């Protein structure tokens, strides 16, 4: 059994660690390229959303290289993600690939059941350790990302933050025990400390809301965070992988509470959950205003249903709470130049707004 899974930001590092600790042979799909996109697009239904096409491309490339077991997610709607696996499986089978596809449904009981499939010989203790290590890696990656988001727009020598990020990825990927993850954490924090920051600058602060795949996958969002940092803007993603796992999979109390608060906040604008993250996009627009952010960027794959609903309501929210919102929908034709221009215009607007009224011309 050679296990593979889709890419989404740092997800592959976490899953690679998990499955190899469970004793499986792992094949990480080749890094995403235009080729992945073309491959996925060619065999997908035309109007399906981009993550479907990209993950299909990942699977095809991984199967070509010898993987025979695909692990992916299930779901129960109403967003399309929950039905990806069923359709992708058929498409791949039609193309003649031989493989097993395991769709993990987002509840713990189902996850438990699948474990016996992947790790028949492992004791519960070993399984627990595999999960702990994967969790520790995920948390470290996310913590460093959060730190870097603050450092990036303030660094003196451009590229310093990026260098630390690359070191983080490599080091975390290689770590084989929770102790070494701890050691790496200490080491990395030191490196972050050492990055020289420009004094007296206060960058604009933008929160990114929207769909998680686009938010977390730099290949798709075209390095949104770095791009904004280059314009001197600090970005804060409203959701990282660890938030997703804790909130949706483990249903941690604090996250459930948080979701309740967000729903209440969004209620005057959107009175019911519409799948995906549509409701949160609206709620965060209001919340981030209260937290003194300068603007909101909503990102999502073109035709994503929950986000399209949010998009059609956001202008009203934006007007009511006086918070500028930029909406970016990504598909396989999205060009880098187009996005850049729109970002620049948005940042100009935010700069203008942030000046005291007297200084505005």
């Amino acid at each position, binding site marked *: 059994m050679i296990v593979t899974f889709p890419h989404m930001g740092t997800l592959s590092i976490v899953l690679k660690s998990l499955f190899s600790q469970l004793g499986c042979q792992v094949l990480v799909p080749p890094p995403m390229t235009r080729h992945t996109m073309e491959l996925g697009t060619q065999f997908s239904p035309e*109007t399906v959303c981009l993550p479907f096409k990209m993950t299909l491309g990942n699977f095809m490339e991984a199967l070509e290289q010898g993987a025979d077991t695909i692990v992916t997610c299930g779901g129960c709607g109403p967003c399309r993600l*929950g039905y990806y696996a069923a359709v992708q499986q058929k498409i791949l089978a039609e193309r003649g690939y031989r493989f097993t596809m395991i769709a993990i449904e987002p509840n713990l009981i189902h996850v438990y059941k699948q474990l016996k499939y992947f790790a028949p010989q492992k004791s519960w203790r070993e399984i627990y350790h595999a999960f702990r290590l994967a969790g520790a890696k995920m948390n470290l990656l996310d913590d460093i990302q959060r730190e870097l988001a603050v450092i990036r727009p303030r660094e003196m020598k451009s590229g310093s933050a990026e260098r630390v990020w690359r070191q983080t990825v490599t080091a975390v990927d290689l770590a084989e025990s929770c102790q070494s993850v701890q050691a790496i954490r200490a080491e990395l924090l030191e490196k972050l400390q050492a990055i020289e920051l420009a004094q007296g600058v206060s960058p604009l602060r933008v929160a990114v809301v929207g769909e998680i795949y686009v938010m977390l996958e730099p290949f798709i969002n075209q390095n949104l965070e770095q791009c904004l940092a280059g314009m001197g803007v600090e970005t804060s993603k409203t959701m990282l992988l660890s938030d997703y796992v804790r909130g949706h999979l483990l249903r941690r109390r604090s996250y459930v509470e948080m979701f309740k608060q967000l729903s209440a906040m969004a209620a005057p604008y959107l*009175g019911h959950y*519409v799948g995906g993250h549509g409701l949160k996009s609206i709620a965060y627009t209001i919340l981030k205003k209260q937290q003194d952010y300068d603007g909101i960027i909503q990102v999502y794959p073109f035709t994503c*249903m929950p986000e399209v609903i949010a998009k*059609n309501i956001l202008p009203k929210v934006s007007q009511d709470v006086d918070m500028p919102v930029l909406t970016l929908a990504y598909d396989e034709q999205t060009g880098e130049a187009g996005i850049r221009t729109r970002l620049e215009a948005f940042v100009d607007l935010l700069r203008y707004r942030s000046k005291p009224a007297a200084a505005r011309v």
Partner: protein
Amino acid sequence: MRIRVGVPQALMYYQYGPVLERFLTGLGAEVVLSGETSRQTLDCGSVLDEMCLPSKVCFGHVCYLQDKVDYLFLPRIISVSQGQYTCPKIIGMSDVLKHNVGKLPPLIDIHVNMRQKSWQLYQAIVSVGRLFGQGMAASLCAWVRAWQYRVRTQPQVLTLDGRPRVAVVGHPYILYDRQVSLDVLGRLDKLGIQVLTPEMVRPGEVNKAAATLEKRLFWSGGHTTAGAALALMLGNQPLNGIIFVTCFACGPDAFVGEIIRQQAQRLDIPCMQLSLDEHTAEAGVVTRLEAFTDMIKRRRRL
């Protein structure tokens, strides 16, 4: 004076309209319908960005009713059967309308969510009744009477009549809205085709055919369309072709279309997908329908 309640002739109206109309009348309201979709409805709806054609149509109907009624009947239909949703756009529709149509009369937007508990419907019925000053018994009674009407109006199953048989499947609010579908059904009939629609398949058969899928579709609309399409293709009566009518931005249909395409290919049934939006040119659709029927007739002669 009776309270005037506006019911947009869009989306769920095509499945539940007559029932809702009777129900509201039974409660003592005066029902105002928005009438058939027109070119103007479509133009009005196009302010919505990236939304599917049917939601734009709904928008247009609401704009029309906006200043003609005391209340707008826009229940938030989240789920009509266990374990399923309608579709995110239907769930969020009333909010999108509220924040995009200038001035709306008060909405009757009670939630109907039968995903976990089917009796939630009765709660919804009772709360609507209360708005019109009706008690629980009277409201439920009005509902039961309205629902009986629906049972009596189930369409008949067609028997073979020698013409080539083509199944035309899609959301009822696309198929039966003549402006939206550009009257695909009528045109095929004129081209000498016996047209079969999802409504002609009994719900039991829809479910049985849908159960052959890898995973149950969690959108009730998609479930019905896919189930009916599969039932028609796998049924023991011959089928000469299948046309899937959809609109560009429909989320669930991207998958439903793929399911239909795969099955049709396996069974060697000619299959065509017609994707519509407000800019679709009538001439183009006519040409495609003609080409498709010609091809089917030719195949039959072989």
